[in-house]
Structures are given as structure tokens and as C-alpha cells.
């Protein structure tokens, strides 16, 4: 469509990286740094994550947990991220990154607490962890992550800031403002989009006309890539490369990981209202655990016995976490007042005193 008075002044392309397809076949050779042992580990993390997920849903159904967003089918993204991040990298997650957080040392009991309506879930049992808690207002975490990456830049710290969001989040201004800053300031940032194709009931085709979410990075002149979000090898490889680049302060990366939300948006949602059964059924065939198990099995790295054993083990570990969660002592009235400011101001001190009495009246111990 170019007319004669037009000259090309810039060009861009978006690449997609792939290794392990839905049938568990390697469509490209295994990169040398992705060892079989690493992939066994990957699989185990996913078993644990899915066990956690199922338990959380069960707890919600029996009134022991609040609204909970399942990560069913999207475990590979979170797992790869958790495995490739280093301790001093900082994670600024959204609410569907359970596996990343579990791998980074936040025990399941903390996650249960958070989803059980207890602020102490974000206190994190590991006091050194400066990761952000889950972010509810969509896309705002990207701005925070840009700020953390700026702190790393100011201090010349060899760490990366990692932030995640959903496909719907890429419609919000915060997303673009953060990418733009990451570009112009060359921030050590890795932004990962879990493109699970739905934002509650809205399919991605109604969010944006883009062919790929990755191309949104062109608006900020930062590197971007699309990866199969159900391909553990592709995810590990892309994340690792982007993280290293960030730690070297060589620029930010946007990674679009394409997957599918197999569950409802949250336990408060009923996806059957807006989603065709057959879409769901075909998505089930491409989910990450099946393909990795196929490959591991074919390569004699996994078998039914190991599977049973791992599931049992994860169930036991999760059961202990559930118990610890259920045994969490209640908060006291002061907890709701003592962290609003560094020191409780006079006007709040009065309210705290009043609240103590109310608390006793409501739940006399």
C-alpha cells in the first residue's frame, strides 16, 4: 500500500519461541542449559502448584477460604519464573502467580492466609523477602515494578525486577506507562504477560486488535517475544535470557506467554456463562503438565510410580500447610491500627481503644 512519496523509516518483527509441543515432542533441540534434572524439578513444582490450587478451591467450597483465583493450566509460566529468578531479584506479582511465590519461599500457609482474608499472608514468613504482595488493582503493579527497577538502576544493583500481569491488564494505561519508562531509562525489568485469553468474561479479541501482546513493546522500543506459555522449555529459556539481560542492565523485556485459563476466573465466577465447552476442551489438550509428563516419561525420567509418590507427597505437604493455616491465631484489634502509620497518631489511638472493646464484643476469646 506504500505510495511513492513514502519511505520506510522503521521496521519491527515479533518472534515466537518454541521447544516442547502439545504432544510432548521437541520441535527444536533442547538448549544446553536446560538439563533433564531441571525439567523433572519443573514437573514436581507443577504438581505441587496444582495440588495447592485444588486444595484452595476445596477450602473455598467449604467456607474456609475466600474468593480464590485458580491458576489451572497456567502453572508452567509461574513455575518457570520461580525457577529462573534469583533470590535478590524482586517479584511484583499479580494474583495468579501462586507457583512463582511458592518456589520463591512463600509457604502455602501464607498464601492461604492471604486468600483467607488475613493480612498476615503478605507478611511472608521469610523476612528478607522484599517481593511485593499480590496486586489486585489490575496493572498497577507494573508501575511499582518500574520503580523498583529504577532503584536497582540508581544503585547499579545486578538484579532484575520481574512483574506479571494478565492479558486484560495490557489494556490499562499503567502497563504502557511502565513499559515506556523501562525503555527510555533502560530499566532492569522483565514484564511477563500471562495471556490466558480471558479477562473474566472478555476474550482477548475484545481487549485489543493486536495480533500479539508482544508487539505492544514496540511502543516503548523494548525487546519482546512471544512464547508458548505451556512449554516449560521455552519459558525457562526466554525468562533466563531476559533476566540475565536485565541483571546486566542491558534493557527490559516484555514476554507474552500464551496459555489458557482452564478454570473459572475465580471461585466467584462461572465461566459457562460466557465460554463454549468446546473451547475449553481443546485448551485442555495443550496444557503444560501433560506435555511435560509425556516427554519425561518417554525419556525415562518419570513414570506412574513416581507420579503417585509425588502426588502423595505434595498432598501431605499441602495438608501440613493447611493445618498451619487453620491453626493461625486470630489477629487482635491493634493489628488493624498499628501499621496504618509508622506510629499510631493520636486520633487513631482513640479509635484503637474503641476497636479493642468492639473486637472483644464481636469475638470474645
Amino acid at each position, binding site marked *: 500500500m506504500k505510495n511513492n512519496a513514502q519511505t520506510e523509516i522503521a521496521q519491527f518483527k515479533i518472534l515466537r519461541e518454541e521447544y516442547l509441543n502439545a504432544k510432548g515432542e521437541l520441535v527444536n533441540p533442547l538448549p544446553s542449559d536446560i538439563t533433564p534434572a531441571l525439567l523433572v524439578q519443573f514437573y514436581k513444582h507443577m504438581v505441587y502448584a496444582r495440588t495447592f490450587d485444588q486444595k484452595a478451591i476445596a477450602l473455598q467450597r467449604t467456607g474456609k477460604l475466600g474468593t480464590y483465583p485458580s491458576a489451572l493450566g497456567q502453572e508452567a509460566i509461574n513455575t518457570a519464573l520461580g525457577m529462573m529468578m534469583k533470590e535478590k531479584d524482586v517479584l511484583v506479582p499479580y494474583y495468579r502467580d501462586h507457583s512463582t511465590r511458592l518456589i520463591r519461599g512463600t509457604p502455602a500457609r501464607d498464601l492461604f492466609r492471604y486468600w483467607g*482474608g488475613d493480612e498476615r499472608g503478605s507478611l511472608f514468613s521469610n523476612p528478607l523477602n522484599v517481593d511485593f504482595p499480590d496486586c489486585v488493582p489490575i496493572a498497577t503493579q507494573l508501575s511499582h515494578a518500574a520503580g523498583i527497577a529504577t532503584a536497582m538502576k540508581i544503585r547499579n544493583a545486578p538484579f532484575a525486577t520481574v512483574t506479571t500481569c494478565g492479558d486484560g491488564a495490557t489494556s*490499562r494505561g499503567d502497563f504502557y506507562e511502565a513499559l515506556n519508562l523501562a525503555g527510555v531509562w533502560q530499566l532492569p525489568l522483565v514484564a511477563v504477560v500471562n495471556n490466558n485469553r480471558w479477562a473474566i468474561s472478555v476474550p482477548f479479541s475484545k481487549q485489543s486488535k493486536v495480533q500479539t501482546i508482544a508487539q505492544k513493546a514496540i511502543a516503548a522500543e523494548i525487546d519482546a517475544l512471544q512464547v508458548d506459555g505451556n512449554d516449560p522449555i521455552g519459558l525457562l529459556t526466554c525468562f533466563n535470557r531476559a533476566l540475565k539481560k536485565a541483571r546486566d542492565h542491558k534493557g527490559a523485556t516484555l514476554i507474552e506467554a500464551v496459555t489458557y485459563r482452564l478454570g473459572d476466573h475465580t471461585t466467584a465466577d462461572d465461566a459457562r456463562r460466557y465460554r463454549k465447552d468446546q473451547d475449553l476442551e481443546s485448551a485442555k489438550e495443550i496444557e503444560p503438565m501433560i506435555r511435560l509428563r509425556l516427554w519425561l516419561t518417554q525419556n525415562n525420567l518419570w513414570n506412574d510410580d513416581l507420579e503417585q509418590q509425588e502426588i502423595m507427597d505434595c498432598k501431605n505437604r499441602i495438608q501440613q500447610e493447611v493445618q498451619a493455616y487453620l491453626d493461625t491465631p486470630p489477629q487482635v484489634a491493634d493489628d*488493624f491500627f498499628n501499621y496504618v502509620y509508622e506510629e499510631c497518631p493520636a486520633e487513631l489511638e482513640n479509635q484503637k481503644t474503641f476497636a479493642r472493646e468492639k473486637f472483644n464484643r464481636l469475638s470474645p476469646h
Partner: protein
Amino acid sequence: MIKAHQTHEATMVDALNLALKHALAEDENVVLLGEDIGTNGGVFRVTEGLKDIFGVRRIMDTPLAETIIAGMSVGMATQGLRPVAEIQFMGFIYSTVEHIVSHATRLRNRTRGRLTCPLVIRAPFGGGIHAPEHHSESTEAMFGHIPGLRVVIPSSPVRAYGLLLSAIRCNDPVLFLEPKRVYRSVKQNLVDNGEGLPLDSCFILREGNDLTLISWGAMIQETLQAAAALEKQYGISVEVVDVASIKPLDSATIIESVKKTGRAVIVHEAAKTYGPAGEIIARIQEEAFFHLRAPVGRVTGFDIPMPYFKNEAIYMPDIQQIVEQAQTTLQQGQ
């Protein structure tokens, strides 16, 4: 031929849905937009079924971007449409504040009447449904301070129906806050007759002589129960005012009541400091100072972020707090 109007045993969700349906049918310029309002019918089902009747050009599922939901509503409203935008929860309204403060409420004034901005922003608000963080906001006071805005809060299905109809027909921008705690817990007989309720009036829900209780939204439930308890247990005659329109504020009705009773307690779920009660108190004492026999009492949320849901009860003002404050107010200045 007189068309018989249908009567419904309606929850507030039903009432809102009926009002929207009525408004959409009566004026083709009414359009709805928001996240998940089309196919899904809204996360609380307030817009359920409307897309099927009125089509996707009038019931628009937007991208997930509140700023442009508000901003585009401003644009549409100036072109003769009447956008009714849903913000999924009030906790996600903050990124729209710029368009509300700087444009929606100023376009008429800025152009000396050439452009107008008849839009409604609906948002479920308040706590008490055991939702995650940011799903329980009550920050109506922040909006009540904005010149040019109307802030309307229904307390029951019948009022939700009539007030929403009037809000949509109104040529000013309206923030319409829906107390989601009572979305389904209260049922009323509702006649779908298309009649609006005034946007500049408080409603007296109960008459009395000893004390005026002033509240709005979901807190009307506790307030009415406290009034009943005070009457029953202590023989105190309590008047209850449902403010309904936070802005503009119908202080005349409030003042009149307080002049009669000499005592008032304001009940709101919002945090106390710089909360809505302040303005009401300011007006009461400005206009009824010498009728006041005791300071106006406040029963409000604390000045803290809403606790996560396991402990939200500690935050939510309850009947006993209202009863106790009422007793205190009655004892003062005896």
C-alpha cells in the same frame, strides 16, 4: 388504553436491572458500557439479559481500562448519548477521578452550556460481602467534594429503581453508588412504572421526636434496626433520614428534623476523618445550632484501610454502636 405496570418482588439487583431496561427502552441515546457487562451480565448480574435485548452497540463490553471508560463516557455524553458506565467495584474508580474532576463535571461550565455531560457512573460500593482487598470501598466523601457532580446512593430496591431512572435522565454527571451488601438481601414490591425519584431530597424513613438518625446506603439497615431497638427497649422516639443524595445535599430536610428532635447521630460506613458526616454536621450546627441539645454524634468506619474480609466486622459500624452512640447523645446536655 392504560398500560398496566408489572409488579415485581424485587431485590436491588432486580430493581437496577429493571430501571436500566426501562431507560434503554425509552431513550435510544442511553448506552451502557463497562467490564463484563455484556455477555456476562456484570459480575453482580445487574446488566443481565440487556445485551440480548438491546444489542452490542448499546451494551458495550469495554477493554479493561477504567480511565477510558470514564473518558470515553465524557466524549459520548457531549454528543447527545447518555452513557451509563459501570465501574466493577468502587475500589477501581480512582483512575477515573481525573476525568470526573477535570472534565465530566466541568464541561458544561467550561463551555457556558454549549456542551453538556449527562453521564452516570455506577459502582457497587461498601463492605460486608467477604470480598478481597479493594472490593469494599466507601469513599463517597471524596466525590461529594467535587463541584458539578451528583452523588446518589439508594438504600432499597424501590429507591434504587427510581433514583437510577432519574440519574439517567438527569443532564448532570451522576456518580451512582450501589450498596452491594444489600444487593440481594432485601426484597421489596416494585412497580415498573418508569417513575423516577427526586435527586435532591432526603427521605424520612421513620418519624420520631427524640433523636434523628441520619444515614444512607446499606447502613440504613442497621440504622433502622437500631431505631426500632431504641424505641422498643428504651421508649425513645427516633426519626430516620435516608440522605440518598449525598450531593447536592438536601440539608433542609435534615435541619428540619434536627430542629424538632434537638439531637442527631450520623451513621456511615466510610472512614471517619474528613468523611461525609463532617459536612452534615457543619450544616446542622450552622443552621440549627440553637436547637441542638447535644453534639451531633458519629458512628463511622475507622480511619484505617478496610480489614481483609476475615475481620471486616471490626470495621463495619453495627447496631450496637448506633444504639450506644444514640444513648450517649441522648444523655449529653440533659
